[in-house]
C-alpha cells in the first residue's frame, strides 16, 4: 500500500505510545497485587535470619506479616482500617492481611486456593474431614500443630480437649480447631404463653409433644378467635430432614446419621424408631400440624412463620432468639422473652454439639520460625483484653462505661463487623449458644440453667470425624434417595410400607453394607 512517509511515522509512533501506555497501566495494577501475593515469601526472609523466638512477640522486631483467609457471614466484612484490627496488630506486633470471603462461596474459593498452591499463612478449613483437605494434609501440605501448642498456654486453654480429639486425622492435628460451645445445639423452642393459655404442661415425650402441636393448631392458643396457628414450623430439603430432623431424632435418641448400639454403629435409617417417627409425621401433616408446604419452604420462611406468631414450636438455638423476640415484640409490645421456652429434653434426648467448627490450618510453605511467631501472636490475641474487643469493641467508639457497667452500641459493633473476627479466633464461652449478653438478666439465668440441665442428657454425634471411602461417594446419593422417600411418606403420597420395602432392600445393598463396615472400623481406630 502507498504510505506517505511523514503520516505513517506519526501514526505508528502514536500506536507505539498507546501500546507502551497500556503496558505501563497493566504492570502498575499488577505491581500492587504482586506485593500482596508475594507477601508470605517476603515475610519469611527477615524471620528466618532472626534468632530463636520465645512465646511473646517483642516490640523491637519488625511486625510479622500474616496472611489470613476466612469466611464472613454479614453483608460486608470489616474494613482493612478497622479500629479493632489496628489495635490487635499493635498488641501482637503483626501486620494482618485478612482476605474475607463470603461464606456462600467459601468452598469454591478454598478449593481454588488449594489447587493454585498459593496458600495464605492461616487458612480456615470449614470441613476438616473434606477429602480434598485430608489428602493435602496427609501428603504434608500443612503443619501438624500438636507438638507446638504446649508453649502457648492462653490459646491452649481456650480450646477444649474434645475439639482437639474430634479433629484428629491419623492421630495428628493438622490445624487449630476453632472451639465452639458444645452444649446448646438447636432444639425445640416452645411458646410458653400458648401452653399457659391452653393449660398444658411442658412436653417431655414425643406423644406429649404431638398433643401440644395438635392443641396449638386446633385450639386457638393465641386467643385471637382466628384459625391461624400451627404446631411446629419446619421444613425439609432435598437431602436431609433439615429443621424437622429433631422430631425424628427424639425417637431414636441419636444425633446425626449413626447410632451406637451394643458397641456397633448402625445407620439410623435401619432403626424401627425411624419408622415410628415417619408415621407420626405423616399423621401430623394430615392433621395440618406442620406447614402444608414444608417440602418446599426455605429456612428463612420457617423463621418468618414463627416470628409472625403463626407457629408455636420451632427448632433453634436459644442464643439466636434475639431476632425472634424483636419481631414478636413488634406485634405485642408486652411480650416476655421467657415465653420462648427451650425444651430440656424429649424422650430423654437432646443434641450435643461437636465442640468445634472447622480448623485453621497453617501450610508448610510457612517456615517453622514463622509458624512459632504466628502461634505466639494468636496466643497474645486469645488474652482477654484483645479478644473481648470482638464483642464490645473499643471504649468510646463501640461502647461506653456507665456506673462500672459496659453499655454496648450494638449498631456500631454490627456496622464495623467486629463479630466477624470471631471467625479467626474465638475463646469459647460455654454458654455462647444459649445466652447472649443482650438478653434480659432473668432470661439469661433461665437459659443458662436449662443448658446445664440439658448437659446431663445430651447426646453427641457419634459419627463426627469418621471417614468411609465408600461413604464419601455413596452417601450423597443415598441421602437424597432416603429424603425423597421420607418426604413422600410424610406427604401421604407413599404408604409406610414403601419405607419397609426400602429398609429391607438395604440388606442387599453392597455399598451400604460396605459403608457401615468402614464406619465401624474408623470408629474402632479413633
Amino acid at each position, binding site marked *: *500500500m*502507498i504510505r*506517505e512517509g511523514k*503520516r505513517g511515522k506519526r*501514526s*505508528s509512533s*502514536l*500506536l507505539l505510545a498507546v501500546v507502551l501506555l497500556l503496558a505501563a497501566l*497493566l504492570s502498575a495494577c*499488577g*505491581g*500492587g*497485587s504482586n506485593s*500482596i*501475593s508475594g507477601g508470605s515469601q517476603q515475610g519469611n526472609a527477615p524471620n528466618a535470619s532472626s534468632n530463636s523466638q520465645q512465646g511473646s512477640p517483642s516490640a523491637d522486631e519488625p511486625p510479622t506479616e500474616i496472611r489470613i483467609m476466612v469466611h464472613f*457471614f*454479614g*453483608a*460486608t*466484612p470489616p*474494613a*482493612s482500617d478497622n479500629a479493632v484490627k489496628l489495635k490487635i496488630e499493635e498488641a501482637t506486633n503483626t501486620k494482618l492481611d485478612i482476605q474475607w*470471603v*463470603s*461464606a*456462600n*462461596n467459601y468452598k*469454591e*474459593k478454598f478449593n*481454588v486456593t488449594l*489447587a*493454585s498452591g498459593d496458600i495464605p499463612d492461616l487458612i480456615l478449613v470449614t470441613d476438616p474431614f473434606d477429602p480434598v483437605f485430608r489428602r493435602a494434609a496427609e501428603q504434608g501440605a500443612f503443619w501438624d500443630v500438636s507438638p507446638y501448642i504446649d508453649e502457648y498456654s492462653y490459646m491452649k486453654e481456650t480450646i477444649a480437649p474434645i475439639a482437639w480429639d474430634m479433629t484428629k486425622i491419623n492421630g495428628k492435628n493438622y490445624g487449630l480447631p476453632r472451639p*465452639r*460451645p458444645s452444649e*446448646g445445639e*438447636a432444639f425445640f423452642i416452645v411458646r410458653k404463653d400458648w401452653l399457659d393459655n391452653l393449660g398444658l404442661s411442658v412436653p417431655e415425650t414425643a406423644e406429649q409433644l404431638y398433643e401440644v402441636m395438635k392443641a396449638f393448631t386446633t385450639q386457638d392458643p393465641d386467643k385471637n378467635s382466628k384459625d391461624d396457628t400451627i404446631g411446629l414450623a419446619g421444613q425439609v*430439603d432435598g437431602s*436431609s430432614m*433439615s429443621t424437622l*430432623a429433631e422430631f425424628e431424632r427424639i425417637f431414636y435418641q441419636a444425633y446425626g446419621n449413626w447410632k451406637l448400639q451394643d458397641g456397633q454403629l448402625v445407620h439410623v435409617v435401619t432403626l424401627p424408631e425411624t419408622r415410628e417417627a415417619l408415621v407420626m409425621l405423616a399423621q401430623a401433616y394430615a392433621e395440618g400440624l406442620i406447614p402444608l408446604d414444608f417440602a418446599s419452604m*426455605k*429456612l*428463612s420462611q420457617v423463621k*418468618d412463620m414463627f416470628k*409472625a406468631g403463626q407457629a408455636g414450636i420451632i*427448632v*433453634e438455638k436459644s*442464643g*439466636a432468639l434475639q431476632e425472634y423476640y424483636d*419481631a414478636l415484640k*413488634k*406485634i405485642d409490645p408486652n411480650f416476655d422473652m421467657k415465653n420462648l421456652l427451650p425444651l430440656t429434653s424429649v424422650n430423654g434426648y437432646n443434641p450435643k*454439639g461437636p465442640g468445634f*467448627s472447622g480448623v485453621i490450618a497453617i501450610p508448610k510453605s510457612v517456615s517453622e520460625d514463622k509458624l512459632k511467631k504466628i502461634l505466639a501472636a494468636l496466643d497474645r490475641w486469645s488474652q482477654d483484653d484483645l479478644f473481648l474487643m470482638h464483642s464490645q469493641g473499643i471504649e468510646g467508639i463501640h461502647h461506653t462505661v456507665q456506673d462500672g457497667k459496659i453499655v454496648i452500641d450494638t449498631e456500631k459493633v*454490627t*456496622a464495623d463487623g467486629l*463479630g466477624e473476627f*470471631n*471467625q479467626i479466633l474465638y475463646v469459647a464461652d460455654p454458654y455462647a*449458644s444459649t445466652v447472649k449478653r443482650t438478653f434480659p438478666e432473668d432470661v439469661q439465668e433461665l437459659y443458662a440453667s436449662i443448658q446445664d440441665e440439658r448437659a446431663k442428657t445430651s447426646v453427641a454425634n457419634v459419627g463426627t470425624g469418621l471417614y468411609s471411602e465408600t461413604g464419601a461417594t455413596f452417601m450423597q446419593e443415598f441421602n437424597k434417595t432416603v429424603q425423597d422417600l421420607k418426604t413422600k411418606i410424610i406427604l401421604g403420597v407413599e404408604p409406610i410400607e414403601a419405607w419397609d420395602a426400602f429398609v429391607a432392600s438395604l440388606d442387599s445393598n453392597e455399598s451400604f453394607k460396605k459403608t457401615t463396615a468402614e464406619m465401624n472400623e474408623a470408629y474402632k481406630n479413633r
Partner: protein
Amino acid sequence: MISNSLGDRMFRIGNAIALGLITLITAFPIYYVVVVSFTAPIEYIRKPLVLFPEEWSLASYRYLLSTSAFPKALGVSLFLATVGTACSLIVTSALAYALSRRRIYGRRTFQLLILFTILFSPGIIPHYILIRELHLINSLWSVILSSLTSGWYVILMRGFYDSLPEELDEAAAIDGCNDMTAFFRIVLPLSLPALAAFGLFFAVGYWNQFFNALLYLNDPDKWPIQVLLQNMLIDASGSSLGDVDPLIQPPPSETLKMAAVVIAIAPIIVVYPFLQKHFAKGAMVGSIKG
C-alpha cells in the same frame, strides 16, 4: 393486506389474552420486588403477602445508600461497564475488521483458532493459575481481561464488516491513510449500529460480572455490585441448622434485600430503552450479506 375475517379476529383476541397472561406472570415477580423494597419492614413481617403496601417507606434505600460498601460497589461496576465495554469494543471490532479483509496473511488459521476458543475452555483452576502468573490477582484488570471478547461476537462482527467493500480501503489508501487511520477515521464511524448493539451486550455482561470477580478480587473494596448482592441475599446460615456456626449475626430483612436488587438492576433498565433502536438494527447486522 390485513384480513378482518372472524377467524383472524378470534385469533388476535386469543393471542392477546394468552400473551397478556404470560406477561403478567413474568412481570409479577419484578413488581413484587419493587413493591416490597418500598414497604416498611414492620409491615412486611406481619403480612403474608404484600400486594400493595399500606406504609410506603424509603428506610431500606436510606440504609443501603448510607453504607460505604454499596455505593463503592456501584462505582466499581460502573467502571467495569464503561472502561470494560470501551476496551472490548476496540479489541473486538479491530479483530473483526482485520479478519474481514482478504489481504491479511494467515486469515484461515486465525479464524480456526478463534473457533477453537468457542468450543473449548480450560476451566476454573487453569484460568486462576494464569491470572496469578500474570500477577493480576486482586486487580480489576483480571475481570476485564477475562471477559474482554468472545469468539461469537468476533465472528458476528466480522460478518458485518464483510459487507464493507474492499474498494473503501483502496479509496482510503489513495487519500493517504494507512490501516490504522482507515480503521479509526472511516470504518468505525460506519459501524456505529453494530458497535451500539455489541456495546450493549458487553455492558450488560460486565455489569453482571460475578464469578470472575468472586475468584480474583480479594479486596472487598473492589467487589462489583453483584458480588455484594449475593453476600446480602443468600443467607449462608440458612442451609442447614446442624452445620451452623453459633456466632453468626441475623441476616438482613427481606425489604433490604429487595431494595438491593432494585438498585442493582436499575441502571441497566434505565439505559436500555435509549439503546434499543440501535440494538434492534445491530442484532441483524451480521446476517445479511452484501
